[in-house]
C-alpha cells in the first residue's frame, strides 16, 4: 500500500507492506536511519519520534497509521546545518558513547523540554526512563538535559 506523510516538514510517500512499522518505513524506505531499532517492542525508546507532536516509539506504530500525519525524527531537529540545542548539549557533556540510544534520547528530551522548560532532576529521570542507555549510566545525559534547559 502507498502511504503519504510529512517527515521533518517534507511531504513524503512510500510503498509499504501492511505489516511494516513506521520505524521500518523511515529507515528502509525514506532514507532516514537516524531512528534506531534495538528492541522492536517499545521497551528501549531508541526509535523515539514525534508523531503529530506526541512522543511515540516508531516501532509500535504501523507505517499505515502514519498516513496523513506529521513525523519529526532526529534528522529533523537541527535547522540550516546547525545543531538543535539538545543535540549540542548531548555532544558537549559527554552524553554520547556508542550513541545508539542517542537519537531516541534527544527526541525524548526535546519533547520533555517542550512540555517542561525547566525540569527538576526527578522530572528528567522519569521522562527519560523509557529510553535505555547501556553505556553512560545516564549521568551525563542528565547533564545534557540540564544544559539544554538552561540554554
Amino acid at each position, binding site marked *: 500500500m502507498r502511504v503519504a506523510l510529512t517527515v521533518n516538514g517534507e511531504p513524503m510517500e512510500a510503498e509499504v507492506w501492511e505489516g511494516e512499522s513506521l520505524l521500518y518505513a523511515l529507515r528502509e524506505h525514506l532514507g*532516514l536511519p537516524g531512528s534506531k*531499532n*534495538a528492541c522492536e*517492542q517499545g521497551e528501549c525508546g531508541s526509535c523515539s519520534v514525534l508523531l503529530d507532536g506526541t512522543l511515540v516509539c516508531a516501532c509500535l506504530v504501523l507505517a499505515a497509521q502514519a498516513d496523513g500525519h506529521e513525523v519529526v525524527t532526529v534528522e529533523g531537529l537541527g535547522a540550516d546545518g546547525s545543531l538543535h540545542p539538545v*543535540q549540542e548539549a548531548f555532544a558537549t557533556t559527554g552524553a*554520547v558513547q556508542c550513541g545508539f*540510544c542517542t*537519537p531516541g534520547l534527544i527526541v525524548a528530551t526535546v519533547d520533555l523540554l517542550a512540555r517542561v522548560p525547566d525540569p527538576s532532576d526527578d522530572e528528567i529521570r522519569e521522562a527519560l526512563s523509557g529510553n535505555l542507555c*547501556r*553505556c553512560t549510566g545516564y549521568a551525563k545525559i542528565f547533564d545534557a538535559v540540564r544544559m539544554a534547559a538552561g540554554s
Partner: protein
Amino acid sequence: MSAPSRRLELGRVGESVRRIDAIPKVTGEFAYASDLFAAGMLFGHTVRSPHSAAQVKGVSTMEAKGMPGVHAVLTHRDVPGEKRYGLEFPDQPVLAMDEVRYFGEPVALVAAEHPEQARRAAAAVQVDYIPQKPVADAEKAKEAVRELTIRHGDVDAAGEVTVSGYYELGIQDQAFLGPESGLAVPDGKGGVDIYVATQWLHVDRDQVAPCLGLPPSQVRIHLAGVGGAFGGREDLSMQIHGAMLALQTNRPVKMVYNREESFAGHVHRHPARIWAEHRATRDGKLTNVRMKILLDGGAYASSSTAVCSNAASFAAGPYNVPNALIECRAVFTNNPPCGAMRGFGAVQTCFAAEAQMDKLAVALEMDPVELRIKNAIAQGDTLPTGQRIEGSLPVEEVLRRCAAIPEPDAEELPRDPIRLPGGAGNTTRGDGVRRGVGFALGYKNICYSEGFDDYCAARVRLYADAGGDLIAEVHSAAAEVGQGVVNIIGQVARTELPEIADVVIAPHSTAAVGSAGSSSASRQTWMTAGAVRAACLAVRDELERRGGSLAPGDEIDEERVYRHRQTSPLDPETGQITTGPAHVAFACAAMKVVVEVDVELGLTRVVWVGTAQDVGKAMNPQAVSGQIEGGTAQGLGLALMEEIQTKDGLITNASFTDYLIPTALDMPPVISELVEEPELAAPYGAKGVGEPPTVVSTAAILSALRNATGRELNRVPVKPDDIVGL
C-alpha cells in the same frame, strides 16, 4: 558504506575532549552496522535451533527455496572451507552438522529480498531434530574447558578466625543496544568485504577466511558503527554467514538480528558458583584464602580458558594473601555459550571475595575499610600466582580516597515517591524503608595475559594539503565501540605532532593497517596510544630528516607495531607463574554505596555511589568518568535485575520486556575520584578504565544491601523475595 574520514580539531592527551564522532551521532548521520545500505542488497536470516541439545538428522530446504523473494538457503554443506571456527579453539560449527548443543545455535541461512520474506523462508526450513537430554547443571558437567588450581604457600595454613560462604551469580547479558548487524559485499573477484560491528577486525578476518576457503587478503573486514559491545562482540556473529550468502548470491547481503535473536547471537557472562573460606589472625591479617569456582561455559569454548584464568588469578582480591588454594573449573554444558563480558571473570570472584571480607570484618568486629587497608597489596608484594606487583597498584590510596568521600545524609520522609524504593510505582510512603551503606574493593588485569602475543599496529600518513598545512592521517584497526578510542588516537597524534594543522582518522579496516588487537581487557587505550605514538615519532623523525617541512603533494607514511611486555602461561599444576609474569598490569577501584530497601515489598533503590579508581593517567577525564558511570550501571544491573533465565538450557526471557537493564530511574548519582599514579610501562602512564567499575559495583551494592537487611544475600541478581519479610 565506509564511514567518512573524521577530523579532530582540538585536544591533546589529558584534556577533556568532545568526542569526534559526537556530531554525527547526535544528528542521526552516524552509520551503525544496522544502518548500512548497498544497491541491490538482500536480507539474510538465520535458522536457529529451538533445542538446547539434539541430534540433527537432516535439513530440508526445498520449500524455503521456492518461496517468493528467496535467493539462497544454505546449510553446513554449503560452507566452502573449514566447518568450524572459534576465538581460542575452532570448536563451533559455522552451521550445525549432526548435532546442536545450545538454544539458538545456527542451523541454516536464508537470503531474500525483504527481511520478512527471509524470516518466513527461515520458518519453512525443515530440520529433523532428535532432542537429547541437555546438560543444564554445571555441577553435572563431565567435560571441562579448563581447570586451574593456584597453590600458594601452605595451602592448609590456619587462622584464628575463619569465615566461609557460598555465592552464586546468574548469567548476565551484555545487552548492547545495537543488535548484531553487518553487510557483506562480494567484490566480483571471489573475495568479500564485510562491514560489521565488532571488537577486533583482524581476528574476525582470521576466523572468517578459512571458513570461506579464501586467503585472508580476499576477506576485508571494515568497522561499521558499533552500538556497544562489552565483550559480546568478541566472538563472531553474522560475519561468516553474511559472507556465505553474499558469495553464493553475488549480491550484497545485510543481516540484522532482532533483540530476541541477539540473546542467542552472542556469548554471555559466565554464571558462577563459588565456595569460599577466608582465614585470618585475630588482628585482621589474612592467613589463607581458599576458593572453589565453578564457571558454566555453555556449549562452546569461546574465551572460557582466559575467563577461568582471570577468575582464579584475582579470586582473593588485591590483598596480601600469604597462603591460598584457588580451584577454578570452567565446564561445557548445553546452556547458552559464555565468554567475554566487561570484568571477565573478575566480577564473579570479586562478588564472593568482598562478601567474605565483610563477613570477616563482622567476625573480627573491625571496620570493613580498616580491614581492607590492613591487607591491601602494594608494589613489591606478591600475588597468589607468585607474580610480584612491579607496576602501579595504589590499593591503599584508592581505599582511603573512596572512604573519604562523604555519603549523603538520609533523606527525610515524606518525600516524592520517585525517590523511594518502588519509585514511579508509588508503592510506599516510606514506612518499611531501611537504609544501608556498603563498601567494596576490586581489581583486575589490563591487557591480554598468559603469553598471548598482544600487539597493536598504527599507521600515520603525513601530508601537506593544498594550502601547505600539515595533515596527519591515522590508520588504525582499533574498534571504536563507544569507549572513545577514536579520540585517543587523535589526542596522541596532536600531542606527538604539534606541528600539524589537523588529524584525520581514516576508516578502521583490515585493508589499510595491521591488527590493533581487541577492544577488550581494558587494553585498547594503552595499546593504541602506544602504536599511534610510535608511528607519530617515526613520522616526526622523517620530517626532521627532510628539513621540517613537506611540499604540497609530498607525504611520509609510517606504520609501527607496539607490544606490551611479554607474559607467560601459568603452570597448569600449581597455577604459579612460569618464565615471567602472567599478567601485564593491574587496576583497582573502591566503591561506597548507599541503598534503601523496602522490607515489606522487597524493593530496592540505590541512592548514591562514591568511587575512587586507579586510572594511571586520565587521557580524557570526561570519557573516564563516563566509563566509570556506565560500568557502575552494568554492575548495578547484575546486582539487582539482570539475569538470563533458562529452563533446560532454553532462554525464557529473551527481550527487553523480560530481561531488565537499569533505566534513568534506577541509576543514582556517581561521584568519582580519579587516582592518577602513572603506570610506568604504559604510554603516558594510562591504564584502561572500563572494567574496574563493573568489577567492584556489584560487590559494593550487595555490601550495602546486606548492611540494610542483615541478610546474607549470597546470590545475584538479588530478588524481592530475598529481601522481603524482615
